[in-house]
């Protein structure tokens, strides 16, 4: 796990703690991850691979999140999607709606990160590692955003914007544990790839840990 992952685990953990005062439910389980048998079209080094037009991180992991109505926080922490060695450091970044994401360039060359995705179109223009302030975008709409670099056509990154504070990436085995959840009925979703999001209705009971297996 790299620093960015630690960061968003920390964010998620902090979110969980803050809600823990109101509720203390948890969900744990396992998401069955797709086995990428076919050779990825794009080189393995790049962490977003596509197979038959489906984008997924590699090595595979999923993002599990709980959908429902949750109060908006005063301020959201800033996330980062850095570029290093002509690739996005984080292949897939899950963020809550309204999160500001910085795109620092850690290479010695220009990058030009842009997105034509319907949920967020932006173009950061060309910039180097010296660019200050670090080019950033705030993601106001839930959805999957494909990040590209206009200069390096192979670069691909994903930002999964979810309208919930309760989300967590699985480990490479697909295991997850999402805690600090309020009791109630929700939809628990597992994003597996750009075309596959599984969901299950869950009833969370205070003080209990629900076990969910996807699928």
């Amino acid at each position, binding site marked *: 796990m790299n620093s960015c992952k630690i960061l968003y685990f920390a964010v998620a953990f902090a979110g969980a703690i803050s809600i823990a005062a109101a509720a203390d439910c948890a969900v744990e389980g396992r998401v069955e991850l797709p086995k990428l048998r076919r050779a990825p*079209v794009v080189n393995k080094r790049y962490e977003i691979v596509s197979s038959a037009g*489906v*984008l997924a991180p590699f090595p595979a992991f999923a993002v599990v999140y709980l959908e429902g109505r949750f109060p908006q926080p005063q301020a959201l922490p800033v996330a980062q999607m850095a570029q290093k060695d002509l690739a996005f450091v984080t292949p897939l970044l899950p963020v809550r709606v309204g999160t500001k994401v910085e795109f620092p360039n850690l290479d010695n060359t220009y990058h030009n990160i*842009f*997105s*034509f995705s*319907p949920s967020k179109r932006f173009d950061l223009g060309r910039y180097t590692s010296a660019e200050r302030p670090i080019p950033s975008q705030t993601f106001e709409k839930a959805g999957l955003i494909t990040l*590209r670099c206009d200069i390096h056509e*192979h670069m691909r990154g994903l930002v999964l914007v979810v309208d919930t504070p309760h989300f967590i990436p699985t480990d490479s085995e697909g295991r997850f544990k999402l805690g600090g959840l309020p009791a109630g009925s929700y939809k628990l979703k597992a994003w597996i790839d750009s075309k596959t999001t599984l969901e299950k209705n869950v009833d969370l009971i205070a003080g209990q840990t629900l076990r969910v297996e996807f699928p």
Partner: protein
Amino acid sequence: MKLLAALSLLIISLTIFGLYLAERQVTAETQHDLRQAFDAELALLRTAREFRHASVIERCHALVHKPRIHAALEDGALDLLYPNAASELGKVLVPGNEEEPLARRSTRARFYRFLNAKGALIPPVVAAEVGELAAEDEQKLSFKSLPEEQQSGYFWMDGNREVVEVIVTPIISTEDGQAIAALVAGFPVAGGERLAPEIQSGLWLDGRLYFQALAEPLRAGLNAKVTEAVTSGEDAAKGGVEVQLGGGRFMLFCESLNPNGLFQTAHEVAIYSLADLLSRQRDLRWRAGGAGALLLLLGIGASFYVSARLAAPVRELAAVSAENRVLREKAEAALKVKSDELLRTARFSADASHQLKTPVAVLRAGLGELIAYGGQTPEAREEISMLLQQTSRLTSIIEDLLLLSRLDAGRVQLEVETVNLTGLVESCVEDLEVLHGFPADCVETNIPPSLMIDGQKRYTHIVVHNLIENARKYNCPGGRIRITAYEEGSTVFLRIANNGHSIPESSREHIFERFHRGGMNENVPGHGLGLNLARELARIHGGDLRLVRSDGEWTEFEARFHSAKVDAKNAEA
């Protein structure tokens, strides 16, 4: 004059031959030059075409790899497709300025469009930005399905006024490797413009010729030629054929451009004007002709000079040879005279001898009868006896002369037999004693018994007799005669010596001449024919006669004969 004419003729023929060679050379070289120039220009044209093609293809490739194009197509932002293409492609794909040279303009697209995954046209937002097209022309750009590989083809556009090269480049998704769209770009092509210095290039497509630079009647003519070339076979005019177009001669080159593509095959048509080349050839011929004429004049001048230089010694030579001829003719005439004289002399002496024989015989017989009748005074008898003696000498001379003249005329035929030389010598020695009273003890003979030689006895007898007679006649009083004979190999030597006076050196050459008598013994009877006759006869026997010694002590003659030993042996066998 003859020399001059010959030289001039030689030079003229050489010059004409040279001119002929030069003409052939000029023709061959011009042909070669033409071929080379044509090939060079064609190569230039092809290179330019390939370069341009590679360039536009590369541009299309680069374009379809642009992340923004991919993003617009793959990330569901078709509305951003044309605007981004416009910004991405910048000046590359905007329609070229008509004022620009074709070489630059032809790498800029006249228009471009995108096709969706089904091959249908994605309509542009602002047509002016992507090159406006008539609806019917735009229709031509759609496909039933997208090609998997880049294709290029040619289309008549703008109401059949223009041909454009259309390059269809599929856009392959980086996500699934499938063709998700295609870029269709149209580029202007040469319509008869001069791309290389001498070469004009255009296109033949769908039975029509795109060759705007050529005026209509010529274009129709060229179209007919190209149609013929195209329909007659696969790239019939690929290497270039010569054609006649409206009074001018051209090399026509025709090559199919996209033989295995999706689109209708187009043919590149290039014509190369031969006018300049022909005029150059004409010019070269004139120059060669001029040079030849000059050469001819120079040659004739040189021949005058050379013949003048050559003629002098030849004239001298001619003069000398004329002199020589006169001399030779004189010499020949003289020789003829001499020979005639000789013949006449020989005939005369033969005739004379013959004519003399009869009267001498009559005279002799008369004198003999006169003595036989008797009744004369002793003085008269002595006189008659002396006359008789003289007639017998005369007879001997006549006979010798007759024999000599027959020898001279080559009319003596030897009837060769085996002659006993020993016997011959003995009988002559006997005669010495009997006829002349020469003392027998003064004659030394050293002859092997039965020494046989080849010859005719009558003539060998004359040889031996004359030699012994001479030895007797010219001997000193009381002198001796020595006769030796021996055999060496196939030769028999007979040596006859006396103690006569030494013959002076100066006379030795002459003793064998006729009527030579040594100039010393006028009292000695003889007529100076003996030695000469003996030598002639020895020679016709294949031998010879020579003086071997004359030193005051001995004067010795040597006669050679062929030995008859072999024959004798054969005879014995």
